[in-house]
């Protein structure tokens, strides 16, 4: 459990000055609470409210169910949350990673899912969509030095398979485009 104090808000310093860093978190209080004086006219705050409404996810919807199911499928249950990642797990993390952060995958993805379901069937398009969607974060990971982790994971997977022993040189990790849900096929000879 982690505490996230509100940036440079008045919790840190009680100067009472501008508190814009936590504005997002108090936005709904400013817009939806506070003294209402019926005799006054309220200006339309629709444009501002939309930003908050967008963030509200309908939990009870088919798309959310599917997202939850996908998120479950991606978990590597053999390993604990802190166990070293195996290759499929690394890919899974990459898939959920990127700007959203792995912790918020399925819920953030719900809106995406709605879009997807509106634009076409999920099953046939899925693999292609996965590739497009996840290619970029994968490259980012590489740049951040996750390569080593993956090589290690690959070596492990290989040992388990047919005891070939680890590769002498770390492969420059050509990214293979592949859905995370299929068992990984080896492309190296």
């Amino acid at each position: 459990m982690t505490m996230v104090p509100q940036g440079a808000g008045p919790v840190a310093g009680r100067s009472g000055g501008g508190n814009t860093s936590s504005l997002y978190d108090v936005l709904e209080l400013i817009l939806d609470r506070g003294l209402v004086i019926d005799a006054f006219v309220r200006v339309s705050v629709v444009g501002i409210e939309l930003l908050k409404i967008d963030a509200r996810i309908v939990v009870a919807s088919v798309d959310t169910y599917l997202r939850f199911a996908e998120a479950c499928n991606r978990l590597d249950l053999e390993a604990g949350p802190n166990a070293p990642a195996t290759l499929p797990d690394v890919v899974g993390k990459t898939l959920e990673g990127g700007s959203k952060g792995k912790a918020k995958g399925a819920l953030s993805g719900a809106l995406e899912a709605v879009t997807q379901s509106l634009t076409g069937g999920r099953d046939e398009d899925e693999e292609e969509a996965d590739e497009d969607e996840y290619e970029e974060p994968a490259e980012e990971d590489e740049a951040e030095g996750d390569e080593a982790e993956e090589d290690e994971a690959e070596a492990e997977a290989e040992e388990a398979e047919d005891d070939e022993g680890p590769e002498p040189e770390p492969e420059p990790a050509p990214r293979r485009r592949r859905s995370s849900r299929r068992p990984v096929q080896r492309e190296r000879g």
Partner: protein
Amino acid sequence: MAVHVYAVTLRDHPCRVEDLTGVGGDGTPVRVLAAGGLKAVVSDCAEDLRPKRRDVAAHQAVLERLMADGTPLPVRFGYTAAGDDSVREVVTAQADVHLAALARVRDCAEYNVKAWREQDLLLREILDESPRARRLNREILAGASDPRLPLELGQLVAAEVQFRHTRASGELIQALVPLARAHVVHPPVGEDFLNLSLLVPRDDGGPLLAEHARLARDGGAGVHTRVAGPLPPYSFVP
């Protein structure tokens, strides 16, 4: 010219807001009107004001400034009156209500606590504790093609998520509410499962923050909380 109304305060509040600018983004100064035994903090604004986030921030900045010298009644963002006279008239007419409300929040501030839970850890816990979810997950991973399976799994997991969020929210509320003079549970926003406002004596936020820190240390269950405050008592006015 309309006037935007920020707050109502007691008459003896210094209302040091002269150097602040109001909503509208055109540098309009914030002013103070005496209204019966009270003061109203206002600024001129266009009749057809179409507010933006910057205006919400301006509103909040005025209230934060007022908080420094005594708890005001924050007016909900976006209320405008036809002119100064209209404000004086209405505030004076409702003076009893305002005075009673000011007495309730006197020397207090609002703290807003939100909490969310890391999804991966939550899903692991659910799969760990629900044999049915585990079985469905296994069947899907093994390549079962029945499209109802993911739906069933997702629905089961969504219900479990809801249940666990409600339970966790209850625990946090139970731990924090005894430290407050009053509390309001708001609907959670976005991926949060808790949105709790607490009214706390303004110079006594320490125990609340300490309890928050204690809660923050516990566990490993992936629960994250964040607290905002001291804030103007938005949630504790009529």
